């Protein structure tokens, strides 16, 4: 992994059209600005991993595990 030291206000350029800016550092928190083409998805890693895990869990469901109709519905 490439490791670069940056100060607030400094930037890193990835390729031709992605710019990552260190906006602010406060204690343990860094605020990062990302300018990237809008077709490029940008996710916080933990959210991306969580959604991936839920998708994969759903994809492993066996049809026989599901009840034919829900035993309870909202408002009952």
């Amino acid at each position: 992994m490439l490791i670069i030291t940056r100060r607030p206000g400094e930037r890193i350029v990835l390729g031709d059209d992605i710019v990552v800016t260190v906006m602010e550092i406060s204690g343990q928190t860094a605020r990062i600005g990302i300018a990237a083409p809008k077709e490029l998805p940008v996710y916080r890693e933990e959210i991306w991993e969580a959604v991936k895990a839920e998708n994969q869990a759903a994809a492993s469901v066996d049809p026989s595990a599901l009840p034919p109709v829900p035993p309870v519905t909202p408002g009952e």
Partner: protein
Amino acid sequence: MSTTIDSTRFGRIEVAPDSAIAFPHGLTGLDSRRFTLVARAEDDAFVWLHSLEDPALALPLADPRRFFAGFVFEPAEGELERLGIDRAGLAASDTAIYVTVRASERLEDFTANLRAPIAIVGGAGYQLLNQAPAAELRAPLFAELAAAAEQAA
């Protein structure tokens, strides 16, 4: 011309050409971009998003409004713009919003992912992050059963 899937779960399924759903950005963690919806019965609470490319890939979906009375879907403006979906398209009558279902041995442990619903807009599918604060990643699907189980424990 219809195509067929030899589903590992459901056997042979005929898929009409207009019922194919393209997921231009796929689904995180799953390797397919073409799906269709398969329902086992008309009034079934679950439908299956079945891959047209992988006969073993299918995931159960639920209509969040059927299970979660207070369900709110607030996609981020930037994400809608990135995907080329407008608000009107999202609100269109033929747009469907689903959530993925995680099954378990006990019904009270079933959950749905309200954090990343799947929107089917004009024949294309997208999984969108839900910004609504109450949108849980693993919301108990049978909340009353879960509450009862907790009380009994």
